[in-house]
């Protein structure tokens, strides 16, 4: 079967400033499939922790609007994961 593709999937970075914001992330993880890059899992998310997670293009809008609605700071580390996957092979064969 063809490999999974990650076209326009995004990696978000959020640093919840308190337990309330950490709770927002945990609640989002209940309704949207988030692949946590750091920490390893939802239950490890805590206040003042840098949290990186992957989300599909479709769901990224919901993520962004929810974070903005809660006035939570965030950045998008990777805008198109599939592109990064292909770019990691940046050394020519010796």
């Amino acid at each position, binding site marked *: 079967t063809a490999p999974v593709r990650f076209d326009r999937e995004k990696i978000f970075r959020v640093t919840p400033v308190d337990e309330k914001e950490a709770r927002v992330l945990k609640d989002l993880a209940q309704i949207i499939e988030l692949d946590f890059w750091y920490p*390893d*899992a939802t239950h490890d998310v805590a206040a003042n922790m840098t949290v990186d997670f992957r989300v599909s293009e479709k769901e990224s809008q919901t993520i962004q609007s929810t974070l903005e609605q809660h006035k939570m700071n965030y950045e998008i580390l*990777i805008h198109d994961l599939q592109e990064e*996957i292909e770019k*990691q*092979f940046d050394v020519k*064969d010796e």
Partner: protein
Amino acid sequence: VSGRHSYGKYNDWDKIVSWTEKMVAKHPEMVSRIKIGSTVEDNPLYVLKVGRKGKERKAIFIDCGIHAREWVSPAFCQWFVYQATKSYGKNRIMTKLLDRMTFYVLPVVNVDGYIWSWTQNRMWRKNRSKNQNSTCIGTDLNRNFDVSWDSSPNTNDPCQEVYRGPAPESEKETKAVTNFIRSHLNSIKAYITFHSYSQMLLFPYGYTSKLPPNHSDLLKVARIATDFLSSRYETHYIYGPIASTIYPTSGSSLDWAYDLGIKHTFAFELRDKGKFGFLLPESRIKPTCKETMLSVKFIAKYILKNTS
């Protein structure tokens, strides 16, 4: 992915297997290959025994590739063996280490997951074992060790990325590692495991915030080891006990090895800090490996000098 094995590139499993054969053929006096078991999908688990042949000596067990998507980790294990064999007789410290110690290097623990991350899903983390009563595949091998295994209520869902498995050491990969370490316990004085990312050097405990008896010793080694690491390219690593530096984790290989009696156990979380995450470009493999090598050589020297 074409071409042949390269230390400056990511190598798929077939290339790594042929690389192990090449290292044994090229350095028969220094390298031997031991099959310590096989995976759920019957791939071999190979340990390279590195060090001048002779009577049994103090040993360090090094493993890479517990989590499939953390590709820079196996790259470091390959680099370590390459550098060790290449600098023997040329670099004074490495020559002394290889004359007086043995390194057991397991380049990829989670072979099935690593293959899957090459062929099907670059974002895969767990192994590929099937779970009873669930369509979700895989166990997180770093939650499957028999140390405080079921203390976290959140790792018993097979669909979780951190699923601990149906029982401690339920996974063939875990069992192969633990059996080998147990059977070589009298010589193994340190255990070092490589992951990515976030640039940290971690030591026990993860399953409790309690500090181990030799905490100050571990802290000192980690401090100096991260100093050595940053001396090359000023790459900054933080260091400390798992539980307080990142978050509590149960069933980890690090804690298991420590509680088994290996009192110097460390986990490297290699580059980077999130700009690329698991997708560190190949152009950064060599600098990552070179700086980490300085750190590992210091730790090995310390173990040689300070363990009985």
